[in-house]
């Protein structure tokens, strides 16, 4: 499947406190969390973002807290996926648990800018910047984690294992 959308570009070390400030950690509702997505960096982000838009960022995206509210807020805002140079480890794992597609592409954040039209091939990891013409390749998702996605997430995987 190919994800296509307009880019919102951020820098290095985008942390969980700016993705979803702690004051909002009193709900588990995706849509409500989505209204405050990236509020720490840009309070108008959730109004500007369109369903299917793509976040592109530098190193260590999602660093800080283990709050699953962070990938939930990004999904709730309508963002289809995050492309980053690298991900913080708890966020990486939580994104898979929450069904937020993420792609690690070391050089993508160098040239891609806000407003570019991007397409991301979920199966091959190929990323194309239609505005500037750049092509990038995301690191393959580890097979075990692909298995989690195919099973429908961690909980489905665990319950299937119990039955089987």
């Amino acid at each position, binding site marked *: 499947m190919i994800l296509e959308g307009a880019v919102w570009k951020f820098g290095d070390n985008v942390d969980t406190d700016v993705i979803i400030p702690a*004051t909002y950690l009193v709900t588990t509702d995706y849509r409500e969390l989505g209204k405050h997505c990236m509020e720490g960096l840009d309070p108008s982000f959730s109004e500007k973002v369109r369903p299917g838009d793509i976040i592109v960022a530098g190193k260590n995206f999602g660093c*800080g807290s*283990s*709050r699953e509210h962070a990938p939930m807020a990004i999904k709730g805002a309508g963002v289809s996926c995050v492309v980053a140079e690298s991900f913080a480890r*708890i966020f990486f794992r939580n994104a898979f*648990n929450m069904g937020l597609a993420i792609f690690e592409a070391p050089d993508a954040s160098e040239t891609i800018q806000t407003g570019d039209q991007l397409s991301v091939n979920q199966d091959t990891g190929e990323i194309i910047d239609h505005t500037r013409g750049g092509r990038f390749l995301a690191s393959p998702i580890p097979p075990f984690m692909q298995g989690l996605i195919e099973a429908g997430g*961690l*909980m489905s995987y*665990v319950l299937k294992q119990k039955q089987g």
Partner: protein
Amino acid sequence: MPQTITEKILAAHAGRASVEPGELVTVQIDMALANDITAPIAIELFEESETPSVFHQEKIALVPDHFVPNKDVRSAMQVQIMRRFAKKYGIKHFFELGQMGIEHVLLPEQGLVLPGEVVIGADSHTCTYGALGAFATGLGSTDIAAAMITGEVWLKVPASMKLTYQGQRRKWVTGKDLILYTIGDVGVDGARYKAMEFVGEAIEALSMSDRMTMANMAIEAGAKSGIMAPDQVTQDYVRERSRRAFQPYHSDPDAAYDQERVYDVSEIEPQVAFPHLPENTRPVSEAGTISIDQAVIGSCTNGRIEDLRLAAQVLKGHTIAKHVRLIVIPATPSIYRQALAEGLLDIFLAAQGIVSPPTCGPCLGGFMGILGPGERAVATTNRNFVGRMGHSTSEVYLANPAVAAASAVLGRIGSPEGL
């Protein structure tokens, strides 16, 4: 095959003779932990799964600490969810108000974590328990829900990074300064996915409290875990708090490490991490003139009795600067009572500070001392990202309890030497 302490713990819990970095393993856990902001998601998923019982009623800890005493109605509801769940499934370690404390201080204090154990928690500072020679890592609520069902978690074995600390610490230099210095050196992603192994004479000379401060902030370098080998200090600490048997592990002398760094701690001054990253460190003597509005002494990083004693030592006989607000937060009821008995609370109050019940409160911008626009705080906490303690234009400077206390008196970032 030579193994690091981390590899040995994971191998033992995976039923294997040895494991290699990069391998995916399924390990049996000794404890799964969640708090009031992360438990509700885990509980919802557990209930949806229609599993009749938790894997073990004594290997789950539910600690309401982030927005407790109940900050508002929605926070009260999150704790209600935990309370009902604990009762329904017979979970022993649910801590009600009056017993609860900051989770990562409370669990070791109550003897609930032992050397050689595997602890997972829905909180990034779960890595704290590595100070006791356990493997401890932070995960999301979904992983905790799955673990409450199966008693297991899948993990990628981390490569180990060896950090050696030699020499003697200078006056006013604590575990907080050693870890801040280290994060300043390696960067906020310098230990990404690694197990930070803290070794050397200067580590052995640290109290358990200071070791916990260091392991607590391993996550701030991007690490999966932090660990110190258990020794006599560990043995003494644990034996006062638990009679349960434990298995201490130690790294083989020829174990392989991804990276090694050596520090001479006698060269390290008290450190301050400037906004807005924990890696933005400099010696307190190079802080310049930074006026502050608030000082916070507490948190899972530095809320133990040793931290309060150090702050009281600096504050005794002083009052804080007129424009400063001082908030002291003993991390658990036992610590609160001990501080009371030792006369520390009177020192804080006489200095015109306030004393809060145990809570995470202001550390993550929850409540109990939020910063307004443009305000600055010095805090013994662990993060200083944009908006961490309040308004997006506020600033947080991270430091040890002595520097935080001195700064409150001076009205600006400074060291006890400046009093």
